[in-house]
């Protein structure tokens, strides 16, 4: 069934990828391109969160920890040692993986809401520590990144399209990893842990090990996003790098789209960022509370009426539309 679904969705994915590839050629407006870069980046962070939060249902609210570690590792390597962010981005990923081991060892003792709270605490502790590291990591003031002009080897580009393609590549990487995991033994183990941890343990799944492994992958990917983000905005401080909003948005886009699904985070990000862009054009950017007010209303609505996310709604509508003419809508299993 999975492969049937795959072949059915394949032309759509190809069309979407083609559209994403030609988009910067069609759209020249840097402001619009910036919105798309944000969509791709947050979709990617959502995909990284979804591996752990969606499939294994380990609902982390502290992914900003890895975003921040990625951002700081590459920036420190760049400014203190002149090392290219291309190396820094991988180093950041490795640092995040290393950090996920002790954090996971602590937090995985707890389940459900208290796991979420413990992950918030770890991200906050890291932020507070970086606020205190004055001589090593610039403390609360943060620092701007040196502008090297057009230096592709240092991950700095004149054209915004280059950043767009990099964000697109990250998202493609995240989706590919999710796709592979979803179809492997690991994917089934993860879903088993997510459904019922005790039952999974009882049938022989090493739940501690599987959670540790998926946390490593999720932390690594989130750190890549952190490096990309500071390279894109040329600025870093603890409040940006370890922003609670990053943790929240990672979870939010996945839940709104549909947790534990390949495309859920992408659907969620597109919806939320489109809403956010609309709100900004209506209200201007002056009203700090508008965007999150609307986000939280959407989140409450999704939880009460569509706890599986909006992606299920779309597949249902699509199937009803696509198969209505042939009159065999009932035969198609709805497993979106």
């Amino acid at each position, binding site marked *: 069934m999975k492969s049937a679904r795959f072949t059915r969705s394949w032309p759509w994915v190809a069309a979407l990828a083609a559209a994403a590839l030609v988009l910067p050629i069609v759209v020249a407006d840097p402001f619009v391109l910036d919105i798309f870069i944000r969509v791709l980046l947050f979709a990617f962070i959502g995909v990284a969160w979804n591996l752990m939060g969606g499939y294994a*249902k380990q*609902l982390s*609210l502290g992914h900003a920890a890895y975003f921040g570690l990625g951002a700081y590792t590459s920036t420190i390597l760049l400014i203190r040692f002149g090392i290219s962010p291309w190396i820094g981005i991988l180093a950041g990923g490795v640092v995040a993986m290393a950090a996920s081991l002790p954090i996971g060892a*602590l*937090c995985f*003792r*707890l*389940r*459900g*809401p*208290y796991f*979420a*709270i*413990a992950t*918030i*605490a*770890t991200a*906050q*502790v890291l932020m*507070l*520590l970086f*606020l*205190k590291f004055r001589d090593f990591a610039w403390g609360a003031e943060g620092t701007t990144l040196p502008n090297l002009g057009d230096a592709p080897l240092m991950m700095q580009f004149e054209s915004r399209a280059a950043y767009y393609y990099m964000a697109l590549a990250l998202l493609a990487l995240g989706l590919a990893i999710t796709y592979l995991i979803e179809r492997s033994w690991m994917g089934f183990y993860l879903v088993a842990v997510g459904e019922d941890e005790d039952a999974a343990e009882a049938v022989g799944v090493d739940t501690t090990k599987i959670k540790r492994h998926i946390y490593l992958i999720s932390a690594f990917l989130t750190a890549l996003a952190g490096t990309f983000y500071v390279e894109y905005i040329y600025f870093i401080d603890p409040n940006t790098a370890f922003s609670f909003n990053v943790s*929240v948005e990672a*979870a939010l886009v996945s*839940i709104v789209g549909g*947790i534990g699904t390949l495309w859920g985070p992408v659907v969620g990000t597109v919806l939320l960022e489109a809403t956010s862009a609309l709100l900004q054009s209506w209200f201007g950017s002056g*009203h*700090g*509370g*508008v965007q*999150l*007010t609307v*986000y*939280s*209303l959407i*989140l*409450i609505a999704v*939880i*009460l009426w569509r*706890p599986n996310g909006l992606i299920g709604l779309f597949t249902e509508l699509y199937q009803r539309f696509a198969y209505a003419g042939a009159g065999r809508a009932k035969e198609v299993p709805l497993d979106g």
Partner: protein
Amino acid sequence: MLATLAQAVINGLLIGGIYALVSIGVTLIFGVVKIVNFAQGEFVMIGMYISFFLASSFGVDPLLSLLISMPALFVVGVLVQHFLIRRVLALGDMPQIFLTFALSLLLMNVALLLFTANYRTVQTAYSELSFHIGPLYFAAAKLIAFVIAMLLSAVLYLFLHGTDIGKAMRAAAQNREVAMLMGINPDRVFCVAVGVALALAGAAGSLLMPFYPAYPLVGQVFVLMAFVAVVLGTLGNITGALIASLMMGVAESLGVQFVGADSGLIVVFVMLLLTLALRPNGLFGGWAR
């Protein structure tokens, strides 16, 4: 040195009384309804704004406005339970966590839209008042807040042990199925539990107002502290939450005094992580999830 230490402990205990009101609410909801209320801090914030507007518009003393903020938030609690929480009780972890989380985001940002991010303070006759015992000094407003907080905790204890609905709540906390078999109506018990918990948060808000500024994100300070205290004091254990809250207040105050002004939160979080590492069931705990 000893006087500084004693002073830090006293300051910590006094603010710990406020933390206790918040964390008792969190642990009460967790014990009875089995939901972690991420929005508890925002109800403290609402209590603060109720007291602020009553004081600034009608000149009502914040301590007197306790009589309005508590019943108002009790009603809010009943409505939140009936229209929101009740609907996710049969669902999994994700909706249960993110419903109150979304509510917290919503209330914070609506407050930001309505009241702006400005700090609001209320000056009372006793806001600046303090008195000394030997080398130690007590701020009157904090002392009053602490005493009322402890009184309210005692009243809650009597309520849980002396009234039928209180006993029903404890029964539902111990074993929901058996409680239902004994004829306890869970919907009603849950509504009262959430109502009482929110009324305590409202009380904390009103008690804070004479010496603490109100702003839309103020709840985050208290809810984080409450979560740590609730874990430390063993989930669902009200006495545990009370003692742990006082400890948290003292730990924070000692951190500020001896490590640095911005280290209060680090101390608190490190305590949480140490608790998780060494005693995941809390200090008073037999059971955990």
